[in-house]
């Protein structure tokens, strides 16, 4: 049987059906009604920011979420003048009535949003039939603020704390007796240096992996200065392998000054403070090698430590050294507690310089810290009571904004 005519007929029918369907679709689109426009357009500067963005808000189109003229979404346009030309900035899905139009401060970036410049905005609701514009809003400017009110609680806390500190420093300078509880770790420093002297072995001082900008490292410099002075007095040796070159430079100066203060500048060995590497585990390998070859009598780990803390401290324990550690890295403190003889926990590291020096000014700052902690404890108790009584205003007092 010859199938050719039948195939031709079927093909022609399919083509005709396709053309008809396409015509229907076009007809349907052109007859679709445009959505009602969004209203009440408001554009204003983003508060408390760097000044490169605005917030755009509007009332949803009455057709949003309803029937045949359903809104698919909104298009946010911006122009330099009310007459345009308008540039499409964002497309927002239906049901959403606000957005932020913001950029960066770098003028050479494609995302640059200029501040202190007049802009005009409009928002259009759109569906398959087209879009309908709102009224134009403007002019509006993005401005940078000079103070972020969201950070009031931080400012108040810092000012209060500074006042406390200055007050106690003033009191200490006038000769008031300030009691501070003894810290075993600090008192053991002298004993550890004495032990090294008796054994004729060096002291290994590790400043950790922190940079010179870390507070823990800064605190460690002060302790290093005291240790260097004692080491110079006892005429024992000190090894300070460093992870960071800037830290090394400061440590060299600190140790040199320690020897100078002890009246033994000639005993300072330039090779005692040196750079090892700035690769974490290569540094650990290097320090472990020193521990196992030199067998230092005392290891001091004071500064910022990460995963290497336990590897260092356990190797030191295996080598039979007396070990004193201190860090403000909460996750590493347990490792040091387990592997070292004495550990300075968190803030005790910062307090160590005051303990070692016993200078009234530094002791005054410690007292201020204690009072600061007392206020925090009081606020925690009050906060608990406020939460039970559902006083959200009290909790809001401590809320810090972005």
């Amino acid at each position: 049987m010859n199938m050719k005519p039948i195939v031709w007929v079927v093909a022609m029918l399919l083509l005709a059906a396709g053309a008809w369907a396409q015509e229907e679709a076009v007809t349907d689109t052109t007859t679709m009604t445009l959505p009602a426009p969004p209203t009440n357009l408001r554009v204003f500067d983003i508060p408390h920011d760097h000044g490169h963005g605005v917030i755009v808000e509007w009332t949803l189109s009455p057709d949003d979420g309803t029937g045949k003229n359903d809104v698919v979404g909104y298009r946010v346009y911006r122009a330099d003048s009310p007459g345009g030309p308008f540039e499409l900035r964002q497309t927002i899905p239906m049901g959403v009535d606000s957005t932020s139009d913001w950029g960066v401060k770098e003028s050479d970036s494609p995302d640059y949003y200029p501040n202190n410049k007049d802009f005009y905005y409009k928002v259009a609701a759109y569906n398959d039939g087209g879009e309908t514009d709102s009224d134009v809003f403007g002019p509006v400017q993005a401005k940078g603020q000079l103070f972020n009110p969201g950070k009031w609680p931080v400012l108040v806390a810092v000012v209060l704390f500074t006042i406390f500190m200055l007050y106690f420093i003033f009191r200490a300078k006038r000769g008031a007796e300030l009691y501070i509880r003894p810290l075993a770790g600090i008192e053991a420093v002298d004993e550890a240096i004495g032990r090294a002297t008796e054994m004729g072995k060096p002291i290994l001082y590790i400043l950790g992996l922190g940079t010179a900008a870390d507070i823990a490292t800064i605190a460690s410099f002060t302790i290093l200065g005291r240790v260097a002075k004692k080491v110079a007095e006892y005429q024992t040796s000190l090894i300070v392998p460093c992870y960071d070159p800037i830290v090394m430079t400061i440590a060299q100066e600190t140790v040199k000054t320690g020897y100078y203060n002890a009246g033994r500048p000639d005993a300072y060995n330039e090779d005692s403070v040196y750079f090892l590497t700035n690769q974490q585990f290569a540094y650990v390998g290097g320090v472990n090698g020193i521990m196992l070859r030199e067998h230092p009598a005392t290891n001091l780990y004071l500064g910022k430590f990460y995963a290497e803390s336990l590897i260092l401290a356990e190797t030191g324990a295996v080598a039979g050294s007396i070990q004193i550690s201190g860090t403000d890295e909460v996750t590493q403190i347990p490792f040091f507690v387990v592997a070292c003889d004495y550990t300075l926990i968190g803030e005790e590291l910062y307090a160590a310089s005051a303990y070692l020096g016993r200078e009234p000014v530094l002791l005054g700052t410690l007292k201020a810290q204690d009072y600061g902690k007392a206020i925090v404890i009081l606020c925690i108790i009050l906060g608990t009571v406020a939460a039970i009584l559902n006083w959200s205003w009290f909790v809001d007092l401590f809320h810090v904004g972005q």
Partner: protein
Amino acid sequence: MKKEIPLLIVFVSGLFMAVQFFVPHSTSEKIYEFVMEWTIIIGIFALALGIWSLIRVSVNRIRRRTPNWQYSIVILAGMFGMVIFGLSFLGGVRSYMFRHFFDYVMIPLHATMFSLLAFFIASAAFRAFRARTALATVLLLSALILMLRFNPYLGPLGDQDAALAAWILNVPNLAAKRAIIIGIGLGIVATALKVILGIERGYMGSD
């Protein structure tokens, strides 16, 4: 003047950084970024000082034949070897030798050092969990409860253990942790103020 000028620089820089935290204006941000870029530049120059320090110490050890001086040769060979293999006219960091030394020497060595942590955790745990005092016994029991929560063979007892472990982590453990963190926060502010006001001068190499 040798002390006063650095102290003045620290005071002005510290005060600017403190004020900058509260000022969101883009000018403040630009100055902050400028300062941060400078710290990177200083860091690069300091790296040269660091490398010089390592070379000097290693060469001195080799020259004086101090004990274990041979390790200094390994340090210098490793450092200069990688620098030479990384030179652009020898193929740069994508060259065969550089990549092979990096992939098959440096990375396995780093991984080995990190892997040691597992053994050190075991040895440290053995020492810490000896129930010699009441507090050590509490530590031992807490550790047992926490470790057993991962045991799949405990059945319904496992669910209870997991709940108890979660309580230990979220209540007493977190309370202690937060107490330490609050103390650290106050300590950081106090130390920063001491540095800004010139009370703490350890970073300058003086008391």
